[in-house]
């Protein structure tokens, strides 16, 4: 199933939640792997229902969340990108959600896919994106009392950590 068909089915079921799918004419799908520049953008508060539908619908069956990554777009908005795949139908889709820098709140999908638990904790740890409904949202890679979120483009390393000089 091509991304366009998936987008149409989603538009039929969820209408409002979907802002749009940028199916780029020029991008097109490269020989194999993910189509470049083809993703479906979803509002952060409708995320969990869309993902539940994507996973449980027998036509789609996106049961494999391959990768969840946070991105800092440097102009006041952060994105969370979901790369989904289906081990049954072997097709793939990319979902994106955008949230303003002031209130970084996205619905957690860790109840939909178990792997999202650690991926979301990493996104929180490195970007500060808060995932509502995450069972145990705390830092995963950095020490618990580290301040600041390192992967943000405007991150300044703290001078001392527990009295230890942090090399710049």
């Amino acid at each position, binding site marked *: 199933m091509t991304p366009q068909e998936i987008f149409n089915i989603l538009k039929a079921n969820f209408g409002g939640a979907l802002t749009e799918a*940028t199916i780029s004419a020029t991008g097109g799908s490269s020989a194999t792997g993910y189509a470049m*520049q083809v993703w479906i953008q979803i509002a952060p508060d409708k995320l969990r229902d869309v993902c539940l539908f994507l996973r449980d619908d027998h036509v789609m069956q996106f049961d494999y969340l391959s990768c969840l990554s946070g991105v800092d*777009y440097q*102009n006041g*908005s952060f*994105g969370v990108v979901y790369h989904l795949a289906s081990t049954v139908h072997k097709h793939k889709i990319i979902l994106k959600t955008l949230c303003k820098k002031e209130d970084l709140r996205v619905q957690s999908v860790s109840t939909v896919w178990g792997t999202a638990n650690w991926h979301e904790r990493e996104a929180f740890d490195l970007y500060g994106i808060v995932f509502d409904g995450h069972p145990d949202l705390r830092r995963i890679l950095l020490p618990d009392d580290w301040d600041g979120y390192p992967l943000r483009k405007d991150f300044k390393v703290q001078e001392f950590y527990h009295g230890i000089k942090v090399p710049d």
Partner: protein
Amino acid sequence: MSAIAKYFYNIFHSLYTVVVGMKITFPHLFTRSATVQYPTVKMKIPERARNRLYVNIDDCIGCDQCAMACPVDCITIETIKSTPDVDLGLTSKNTKKRLYIPRFDIDIAKCCYCGLCVWPCPTECIVMTDVYEFSEFDRQNLIYSFSNMTEDEVGAATARLKKYEEEQAAKKAAAKATSTPPATGTAVSPLPTPVQKSEPPTK
């Protein structure tokens, strides 16, 4: 299999596999050892081995390619332009040398031995030798400096360069009537977000 048969199978099978395991390890008592007594016997190193860096400073034209290619920035080079009247001689590939190199340091403690500096060097003066025993007691000794210019040579070169530049500046001041240089450079714009509207992103 009924429980009793399984019980007996377990016993005899484990005895059998224990004996099989021991039959495998026994002949190893008599096979030659795969280890080598290191300091007395040294393993042969293949000729492409990437270990310690060596720079043939005579060939180096100070182009800074290797310093830019290094992922960990462990090469620091300083150069002084030479005045046209001085002839610095030719490199082995007879390209003209125009820069003095007072300082060419490689911090081998930081080097990750990836070999990315060897690839872009135009005169192939930086190579990776197969010396792997170069540990030191003091980390400072691991900073290798390959430049062979003495202090006064550096002083002389800078003095000559300064004098030459003053002459140029004076000549340019004399011919001040020409037009002023144009403004250059544009700031690199940050990456815009995927646009809200549905038209595809511009190429």
